[in-house]
């Protein structure tokens, strides 16, 4: 059987019997528009994400993938269906999930260190206990020398790395990343992808990664969910069976190309072109 076609859910179910970290069934989100109408942003999504997995969602702009992330972050209520995080129904933001946004969202009046510690202040945790850990994470992200700098003194890539450190410092089980490298140039983006994989392999978080780049999704993920628009629904899920640790050379392999072709076919079949 073609490994590309291996159904990811069954693969995981056979691998371990633990309940998934995220379990979504019939997840539906309907927006009310200003004109009084309704827009179905997400329709009947069924998926699960297991502990330690790196799962990407790929789809064109407007397919509802950012909406999906905000629902999982507890920032948006969903309309129908169910979502459970670590076995408990999702109601509002959870301390087990941290979000990395499209833009770094660093506060310009705070230094890098103060920005990274902000969620600890919000969660009313003891700052003294997290400072050492913040130093370690900044070191890992190559930002140790910049901890007293302000965000405007950093490059775009460094700002986004600081925002990833900010998310990791909360020690979440789940990292929700919303096209975090979309605003970076192609070269920086590849570097950031490598760094993210390195950080992920060290911290072993579960990552839910939104992107519109098919290559980025394949390069990073264990599984890729292809989403199509209007209404946002899952066109297919592909397990990426590429050896880790990965480096940029795998992008040129035949296997990588087949995954990309398959994903593109899934997205094109519904009229979606990324």
């Amino acid at each position: 059987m073609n490994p590309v076609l291996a159904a990811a859910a069954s693969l995981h179910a056979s691998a371990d019997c633990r309940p998934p970290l995220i379990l979504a069934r019939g997840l539906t989100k309907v927006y009310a528009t200003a004109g009084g109408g309704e827009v179905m942003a997400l329709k009947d999504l069924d998926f699960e994400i297991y502990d330690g997995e790196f799962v990407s969602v790929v789809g064109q702009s407007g397919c509802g993938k950012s909406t999906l992330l905000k629902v999982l972050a507890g920032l948006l209520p969903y309309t129908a269906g169910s979502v459970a995080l670590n076995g408990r129904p999702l109601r509002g933001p959870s301390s087990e999930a941290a979000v990395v946004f499209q833009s770094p969202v660093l506060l310009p009046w705070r230094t890098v260190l103060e920005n990274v510690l902000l969620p600890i202040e919000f969660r009313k945790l003891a700052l003294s206990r997290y400072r050492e850990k913040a130093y370690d994470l900044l070191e890992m992200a190559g930002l140790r020398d910049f901890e007293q700098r302000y965000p405007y003194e950093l490059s775009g890539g460094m700002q986004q790395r600081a925002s990833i450190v900010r998310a990791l410092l909360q020690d979440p089980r789940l990292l929700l990343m919303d096209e975090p490298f979309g605003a970076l140039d192609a070269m920086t983006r590849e570097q950031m992808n490598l760094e993210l994989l390195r950080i992920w392999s060290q911290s072993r978080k579960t990552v839910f990664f939104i992107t519109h780049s098919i290559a980025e999704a394949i390069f990073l993920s264990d599984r890729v969910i292809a989403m199509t628009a209007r209404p946002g629904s899952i066109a297919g899920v592909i397990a990426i069976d590429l050896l880790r640790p990965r480096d940029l050379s795998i992008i040129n392999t035949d296997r990588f190309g087949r995954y990309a072709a398959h994903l593109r076919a899934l997205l094109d079949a519904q009229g979606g072109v990324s």
Partner: protein
Amino acid sequence: MALESANLSSPERNDALTRHAPPSVFRRYPQFTISPAILVTLLVGWWLASDVLHAPIYVVPPPEQVFQALLRGFSRAPWDRASYWYHSGVTIWEALAGFAIGSALGTVLGFVLSHWPLLGKSWYPYIVGFQSLPKVAIAPLMVVWFGFGLQGKVFITAVITFFPLLVNTMAGYQAVEPERIELARSCNASEWHLLSKIIFPSCLPFLFAGLSVAAVLSIIGAVVGEFVGASAGLGMLLMQYNQALEIAPLFAVVLLLGVIGFLMNFAVGRLERRYCFWAQRSNAAART
């Protein structure tokens, strides 16, 4: 790689663009070179108009008479009720007290009306209506309410400085990046933390824009308050000199008010650089 791109906003790059000719002293410090030159030009023009072209003395009094009036006014002791120190002190005190009260109330109410949109929407027509009133029109009423003392001047100054802060706070609140609020919500931040750590600092550039407008308006408020009835202050002096047709000291007081307004604005600018340094530098970094 990251180090190099971090330097994009540093001065080196600007130097590289203009390496052929290093920026002149005029370009670097216009406030210490060109601005004084403009002042000298204006003074020479003034002197020419009055002493050489002999413009009527009630239109353009000779500069030396105006400076003599200033000297006379300031050579007296500050507690002397005829000295400019005393009258300046009264006016500055009225302006500062009204400024503090009005801008504090405007800021607080701006946050309240923004944070509870129902409240904001229902009050908005009245705020717009009251804002479009010429506030100086209520100045004569101040004498009826408060007499000739300080309270009336402080009150009208507070009313005048209230609106720039109210309007700017509401605009600032609207302009807070939604992602910042989502960041706070995703961390289960309390409403108080959201307000104090995200929204209030985000509004600071707007607040300072309002404060620098209010600083100038506060002098106007105090002077207008004194026009309609006062026992002390620069506005009262203006009225006295006007009635006595003493044009040179009248000009001296007008100059003095200009200097006070400038200093108030300067003080707000220094505070802004101290507490809002990040806004200007973030903008500068974005423009390079």
